[in-house]
């Protein structure tokens, strides 16, 4: 099977979906001649024309409002927010509006739109090119939120997102774009929304994670196995709806859990995972629920040593595994 980077998988999937369904149109800043700041749409305007690859003015609320309006009028818009840090102006159109179109019209209207949101740190992005923005989206009924970590999942979940009749937020970790390679079948497939996946089976404890942290967790689990700890790694993949069955099954089986995320801890995905475990795995737990996250400071300092200190790393995860193993 061919190997691809995440950004290649994203690009190929968008291209395939646009060929497959002419109602798919792209909206975003610099996605035309520039091909997107991450080159996700490189060559698209040449193939699909300026009608379907629309360089918008610099206005994120507009981008999402346009996508919503076009979606209720027969299109499947795929919007790009250039960096997750710039999604805040669009919250009203996403969380306030798009999420509630189906419910608020009792199904008379649907909003089949997808919003790609490159997010995450470890890229020397400082306070405004590093943020994790999943919390509010994952909280909001009516939205679907996916966060693929591998090229395979990036393709399968993006295809599912575009074909979904609901508004879907696709969180793509910027650092994985070129860093992470993996096998991607050339043909058409989708990854189901709402299903976590065990990316490494194990019996001593479960790491629950997603995004870039999946790769760090897998590295740490590998290193831990040399120390004799058999760590299972569960990749959430979808952040709304969370696959609580998969979480409960794995943690009940291993009896210990370490939740790893790049986002700051208070009221976050890790909180909800902990709550699910506290509700459903109580009688099977052998140790307190543990979390490894950055500290409670604004994500994240630009200066290199501080950025490194902020981000979880394979080493920090390994240390947390060792500590938990001994509990």
């Amino acid at each position, binding site marked *: 099977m061919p190997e691809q980077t995440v950004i290649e998988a994203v690009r190929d999937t968008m291209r395939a979906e646009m060929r497959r369904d002419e109602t798919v*149109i792209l909206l975003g800043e610099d996605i035309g001649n520039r091909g997107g700041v991450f080159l996700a749409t490189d060559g698209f305007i040449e193939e699909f024309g300026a*009608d*379907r690859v*629309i360089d*918008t*003015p610099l*206005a994120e*609320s*507009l981008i*999402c*409002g*346009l*996508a*919503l*309006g*076009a*979606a*209720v*009028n*027969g*299109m499947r*818009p795929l919007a790009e927010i250039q960096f997750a840090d710039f999604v805040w*102006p669009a919250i*009203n*159109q996403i969380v*306030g*509006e798009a999420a*509630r*179109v*189906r*419910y*608020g*019209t*009792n*199904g*008379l*209207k*649907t909003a089949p739109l997808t919003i790609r949101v490159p997010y995450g740190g470890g890229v020397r992005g400082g306070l405004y090119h590093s943020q994790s923005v999943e919390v509010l989206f994952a909280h909001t*009924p*009516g939205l*679907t939120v996916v966060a693929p970590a591998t090229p395979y999942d990036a393709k399968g979940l993006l295809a599912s997102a575009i074909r*979904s*009749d*609901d508004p879907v937020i696709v969180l793509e970790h910027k650092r994985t774009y070129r860093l992470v390679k993996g096998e991607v079948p050339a043909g058409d497939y989708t990854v189901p*929304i*709402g299903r976590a996946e065990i990316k490494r089976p194990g019996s001593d404890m479960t790491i629950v994670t997603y995004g870039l942290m999946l790769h760090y967790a897998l590295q740490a689990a590998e290193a831990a196995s040399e120390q004799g700890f058999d760590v299972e790694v569960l990749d959430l993949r979808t952040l709304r*709806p969370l696959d609580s069955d998969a979480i409960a099954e794995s943690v009940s089986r291993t009896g210990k859990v370490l939740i790893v995320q790049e986002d700051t801890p208070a009221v976050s995905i890790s909180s909800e995972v902990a709550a699910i475990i506290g509700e459903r795995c109580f009688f099977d737990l052998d140790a307190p629920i543990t979390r490894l996250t950055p500290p409670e400071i604004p994500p994240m300092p630009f200066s290199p040593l501080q950025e490194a200190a902020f981000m979880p790393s394979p080493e920090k995860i390994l240390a947390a595994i060792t500590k938990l193993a001994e509990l």
Partner: protein
Amino acid sequence: MAATVNKSPKLTMATGQLSGERLVELYRTMVLSRYLDERVWLLNRQGKAAIAASAQGHEAAQVACIEATDPSKDHYLTYYRQFTAMLALGTEPEEMLRSFLAKDGELMSAARQFPLHGAHPRVDLFNFSNVIATQLPQAAGVALADKLRGSDAVTIVYFGDGAASQGDTHEAMNFAGIHKLPIVFFCENNRYAISVPLSMQMAVDSVASRAVGYGFPGVQVDGTDVVAVYEVTRAAVSRARAGKGPTLIEASVERLLPHTTDDDHTRYRSAEDIEQMSRRDPVKITSETLRRRGLLSEVEDEAIHAEAKRRVNTATDTVDAEPYPGVETMFDHVTSDSARKRDGIS
């Protein structure tokens, strides 16, 4: 392209392209709207309607605007004050009341939303939220879709003078101008946003003047004048349908009642202001003009009033007796995947 702010050329009533018969029909809708609107207010006072926003004072602008469009294909993005427009588009008084009383079978949202919010099942009219100005970028998106697929449908988006201050309004007009979208921005300027007067909302006295910065025409029109509103809207709709781009129409109207049933405008409007605006009641103005022009006799006018009253009474009796929606349906349509309901302990 030259963008100009024109005071509507005709502020006096002339039949123009509208036949006398159609004018009387529009008037009939206005009268029905007025009675129904009064009834809703009363039902609120009786504790039966939780909240209502009235269109009293906006009736002429709304019927005339709809008259200039094609409900078989055009799109209408409304806000909470489009009471008369709803009737003009064929919504039945029963359906309207069901919306205000949140009764089972409510038309637009199954009573999940405030009255007249949601989507209309028969015409492409929708109003997704109470949140001011969100409809403008959405309308640009609707119009964009039509443009891309080569449809000649036109999108009409309604908003108030207060909504003009929101960033979304600016972003939507700017985009519509760039792409020459088939859209009409229809502002019902009643000079108040709840209690905030126009002078605290903008430093200019015309919303239409903004169009200059977006490269399309802005027109001010007397919103109590059915023919004038019809004419500027018809021109704007033709322009849009012909692919020539957007128009911003600003209809000067009065808000004859407080902002909603929760409001008391004597807290912030002077007696003089209230007195003056009452003189611009479009139902009265239209009646007088139709009579003066010989299009309506006193007897006919009385019959129209009587008929409206009767329809409102019948509708009230029907809907008042209906049940509220039960709880079993409240989990429907959160997402397309009904399995994604997650029951709380409720």
